[in-house]
């Protein structure tokens, strides 16, 4: 009945002679064991890397036996052979119905050790299990199987009590006979092989061709290759693994990778909860299994007997002894593990950052439904495992090349593309994490791609209103904010808020998350009061649910602090930032991205408070850290330098400031683009520095560019636009374009009043500027009033020792002097002098300025006494004492 085929020559299987030739050539006859006497009908029944097993009839006793012949390897030396024989003796003394008996041992004619064992007519455990229905605890198969497992544990315990460890427990080593009784093979034979490489050598097939071999069942201490660390509890671990596999048909870690990866997994990866693979496994049973799989030996059952007892209790319905480990406990450990950021040749892997993303996934959810929590935890575990793989792979390769986070991430993204992970939920989550991490690295296009992919996957799997989809969309909204696209972000957020409020309770983590993004949007838009109202309860709730050392909590704290800052509530802002920084430094380390970011915010607040030198120190620290973590071209590093420029200017260190900004502005333009908010801010900074240095033409050019870009991109009611407007005006003023400057400053102040709350201290600066222009235009009265307003605002909203107050007073006094109102001018100048003197002493240049002006005023007023008094305080400008500081 051969089918017609197109080929001409008969294939080898069509032609009988050819077929027979192949049959004979291929040795399909059973092989006779080399050099083994005393057996009939010996035929090979299995073969592995280290041994071949034959079955046959022992002539002397007429009983069926299995003969395991060890191949070349560790057994050729006298010493090891003697050791092997001693082992056999020990094992042979074990007589237990469930332990395969050893009858004899010896050495074949060609030098291969062998041992003769009881032949078990049955199937290996995994075959037995595949014929059972172990998915459903209500099925009698399930309970029967657990009973079988208890018998196995009892047998193992029996051997332990007589000083024999197995060390290689796995389904392939357990045979189930026709009566359903288990028989454990190969006790103690593994003792001479203690090292990890030996373990690896045995990591492939065993007798029945179990694909995963010994490695998957090996305990962490075995995977670590420490022969002295292996004890009874290692066998307990293997038993737990067998139970895990039987009931879930899966493994708790990825065991199909390269050897070193697998070993790493066994040693460090947290196991996937059995219930994630088989939903019907209940908490108690799961706890029993997980206890066996604990990484530390002390946390497992201390004997196989204890394990058996707990399972018996479970079957009887009694409470089990194993206590569930709190996931928080295991997570804390993981955090500590990553606290020392891995520095590879100067490039720091921001492990804390990535891990904290994972922690966010785990703990950003504060829902009470246990099933959901468990599912999330297991999903997160898979994700965390993936990420840990990703990080673990970031080792310099043999050539010592450095690996950056970027490269690792690209690799992980590729892995995801090749479909290494199958399940859509996990894939979506991984896309989301990878997208978020790219966002953290500043690669917005990549981030968007991955987030889009995550959203698409989730929409497809779960629909538009599902938690996963909504969460990923929240991520996207944040990305849009990062990209300075607040309108797009608002559109997304509006929709999100509607959906979330319709479907989730008020204290659901997703609600909190979306609220947080919404609050960020408001602060991005400069609507501070609204942002504050949103952030304050968010911080409280996060503190409550997730604790202070949770990344989300800390981020929200910082966000709120920034809002305080923007509203001029500097003290609150400083306190909150310091608190966050403390926790972040302790939890993640000083060089961690969250800590660095907070440092910058703190410096900004200190700046606003006038504590300039302190702020400068922190900024330097921060920039050094940023260079280490992100490198010179990252948006964050660039922005930090921009902050430092502002600070240097305020301290009058103009040359340093100019050099700095001329250094990074070109990079920003190239990397972020000329219309990016950060670039514009830097341009503003540069213009300001030019003004400070008196290079007015240059200042005007840059300032105009910045201003026009701002107008184009943001419109006129935006903080950055106003700043650039102000700078432009200053430049114009300095360049002598009085009328234009005046008009610009008037418009600027108008817009500032619309943007900032009434009497906000930030208004003092544009007021000051405008008043100054008016003075130059001769509009003295108007200027005086404006100055008065500015002083009022400063007294109201800034600390009494803030540097701007005397500055303002000085300006006002000048105007008043010009208007001939000497008494008023005197009053201002005296206060100005007092403030400067208190702060910096008579010798300081600012104080000197006040002194000289007072001397001049008194001379003009004809008050010789006072004039002389102040003249005496004048120090000649050439001397160094003006800049001399106290030791």
């Amino acid at each position, binding site marked *: 009945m051969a089918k017609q085929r197109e080929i001409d020559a008969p294939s*080898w*299987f069509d032609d009988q002679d050819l077929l*027979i030739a192949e049959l004979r050539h291929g040795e*399909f006859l059973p092989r006779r064991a080399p050099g083994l006497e005393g057996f009939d009908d010996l035929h090979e029944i299995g073969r592995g890397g*280290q041994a071949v097993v034959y079955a046959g009839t022992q002539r002397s006793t007429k009983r069926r036996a299995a003969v395991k012949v060890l191949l070349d390897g560790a057994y050729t030396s006298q010493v090891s052979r003697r050791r092997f024989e001693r082992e056999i003796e020990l094992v042979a003394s074990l007589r237990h119905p469930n332990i395969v008996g050893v009858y004899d041992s010896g050495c074949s004619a060609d030098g291969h050790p062998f041992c003769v064992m009881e032949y078990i007519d049955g199937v290996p455990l995994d075959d037995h299990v595949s014929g059972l229905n172990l998915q459903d605890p209500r099925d009698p198969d399930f309970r029967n199987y657990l009973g079988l497992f208890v018998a196995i544990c009892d047998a193992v315990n029996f051997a332990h009590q007589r000083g024999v460890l197995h060390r290689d427990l796995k389904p392939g080593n357990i045979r189930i006979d026709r009566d359903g009784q288990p028989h454990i093979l190969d006790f103690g034979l593994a003792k001479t092989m203690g090292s990890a490489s030996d373990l690896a050598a045995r990591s492939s097939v065993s007798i029945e*061709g*179990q694909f*995963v071999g010994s490695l998957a069942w090996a305990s962490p201490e075995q995977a670590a290759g420490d022969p002295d660390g292996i004890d009874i509890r290692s066998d307990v671990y293997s038993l737990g693994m067998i139970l895990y596999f039987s009931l879930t048909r899966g*493994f708790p870690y990825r065991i199909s990778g390269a050897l070193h990866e697998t070993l790493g997994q066994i040693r460090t990866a947290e196991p996937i909860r059995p219930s994630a693979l088989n939903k019907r496994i209940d908490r108690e049973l799961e706890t029993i299994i997980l206890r066996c799989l604990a990484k530390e030996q002390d946390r497992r059952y201390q004997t196989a007997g204890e394990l058996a007892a707990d399972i018996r209790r479970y079957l009887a319905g009694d409470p089990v002894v194993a206590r569930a480990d709190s996931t928080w406990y295991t997570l804390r450990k993981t955090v500590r593990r990553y606290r020392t950021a891995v520095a590879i040749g100067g490039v720091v892997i921001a492990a804390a950052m990535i891990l904290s993303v994972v922690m966010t996934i785990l703990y950003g959810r504060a829902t009470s439904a246990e099933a959901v929590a468990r599912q999330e935890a297991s999903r997160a575990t898979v994700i965390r495992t993936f990420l840990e793989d990703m990080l673990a792979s970031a080792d310099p390769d043999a050539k010592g090349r450095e690996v950056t986070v970027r490269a690792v991430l690209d690799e992980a993204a590729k892995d995801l593309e090749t479909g290494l992970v*199958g399940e859509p939920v996990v894939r979506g989550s991984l896309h989301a994490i990878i997208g978020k991490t790219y966002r953290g690295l500043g690669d917005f296009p990549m981030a968007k791609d991955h987030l889009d992919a995550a959203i698409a996957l989730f929409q497809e799997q779960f629909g538009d209103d599902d938690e996963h989809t909504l969460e990923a969309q929240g991520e996207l909204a944040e990305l849009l904010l990062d990209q300075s696209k607040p309108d797009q972000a608002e559109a997304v957020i509006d929709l999100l808020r509607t959906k979330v409020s319709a479907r989730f309770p008020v204290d659901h983590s997703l609600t909190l998350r979306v609220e947080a993004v919404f609050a960020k949007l408001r602060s991005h838009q400069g609507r501070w009061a609204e942002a504050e109202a949103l952030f304050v309860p968010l911080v409280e709730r996060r503190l409550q649910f997730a604790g202070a050392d949770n990344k989300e909590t800390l981020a929200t704290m910082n966000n709120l602090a920034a809002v305080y800052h923007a509203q001029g509530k500097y003290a609150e802002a400083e306190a909150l930032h310091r608190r966050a920084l403390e926790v972040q430094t302790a939890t993640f380390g000083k060089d961690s991205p969250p800590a660095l970011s907070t440092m910058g915010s703190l410096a900004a607040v200190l700046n606003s408070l006038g504590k300039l030198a302190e702020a400068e120190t922190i900024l330097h620290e921060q920039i050094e850290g940023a260079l280490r973590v992100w490198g010179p071209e990252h948006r964050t590093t660039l922005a930090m330098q921009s902050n430092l420029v502002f600070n240097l200017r305020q301290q009058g260190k103009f040359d340093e400031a100019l050099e700095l900004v001329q250094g990074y502005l070109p990079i920003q333009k190239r990397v972020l683009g000329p219309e990016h908010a950060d670039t514009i801010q830097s341009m503003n900074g540069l213009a300001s520095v030019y003004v400070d240095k008196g290079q007015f033409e240059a200042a005007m050019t840059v300032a105009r560019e910045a201003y026009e870009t701002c107008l184009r991109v943001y419109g006129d009611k935006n903080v950055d636009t106003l700043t650039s407007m102000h700078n432009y005006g200053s430049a114009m003023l300095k360049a002598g374009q009085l009328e234009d400057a005046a008009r610009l400053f008037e418009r600027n102040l108008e817009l500032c009043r619309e943007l900032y709350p009434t009497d906000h201290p930030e208004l003092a600066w544009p007021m000051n500027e405008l008043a100054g222009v008016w003075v130059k235009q001769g509009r003295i009265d108007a200027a005086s009033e404006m100055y008065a307003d500015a002083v009022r605002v400063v007294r109201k909203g800034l600390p009494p020792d803030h540097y701007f107050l005397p500055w303002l007073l000085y300006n006002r006094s000048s105007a008043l002097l010009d208007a001939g109102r000497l008494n008023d001018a005197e009053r201002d100048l005296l206060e100005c002098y007092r403030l400067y003197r208190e702060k910096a002493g008579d010798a300081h240049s600012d104080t000197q300025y006040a002194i000289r002006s007072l001397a001049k005023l008194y001379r003009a007023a004809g008050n010789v006494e006072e004039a002389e008094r102040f003249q005496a305080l004048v120090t000649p400008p050439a001397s160094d004492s003006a800049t001399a500081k106290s030791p």
Partner: protein
Amino acid sequence: MYAQVSTHVTLLNRLVDGSDLSAWTDFHRRYGELIRGFARRRGAQDADCDDVLQDVLVSLTRAMPQFSYDPQRGKFRSFLKTVVDRAVYKKLRQNPPDSSLDAFDGYDAIGEGDGDADAAWESEWRHYHIRQAMQTIDVEFNQSDRLVFRHYVVGGKAPGETAELLGVTINQVYKAKSNILKRLSELIARQVEEEG
């Protein structure tokens, strides 16, 4: 019970799916000896063969989800060969056979028309097919016929001797041979169509 054809197809589908772990065990059972046999022929030591097998399975884990199963003749087989070749080559680079390094240089051509490798692969593949088909034979034929096959066809004993040994007539001996060979041929033909 032993629908060989669908077993291969469904096995690949299960592997492509990526989430069915027992599919790997099955895959190993099916192709393990083929892969190890080939590796051995190419000079790998016994212990190394297991590494090669492990390596192949790992590579397949990565590649399978993208592998679009196309029941073209020989497609799976040539795909598998590429993977195995690579694994063997890798292994041999690590532990070159004791023979001189000159022999080792010859492995540069692996995967690109190396005559020896092709022959070895073909040979192992044929043995694989026979083994697979024999499993069905073991089920479809009774013990007597199977023993005849073993002693007469494979073992090369004379028909008379076989008949006497097993307590059957010579006619039964000839019949058993004919039936089993025909069935083998059929089974292998179908397998080859599927897998190459």
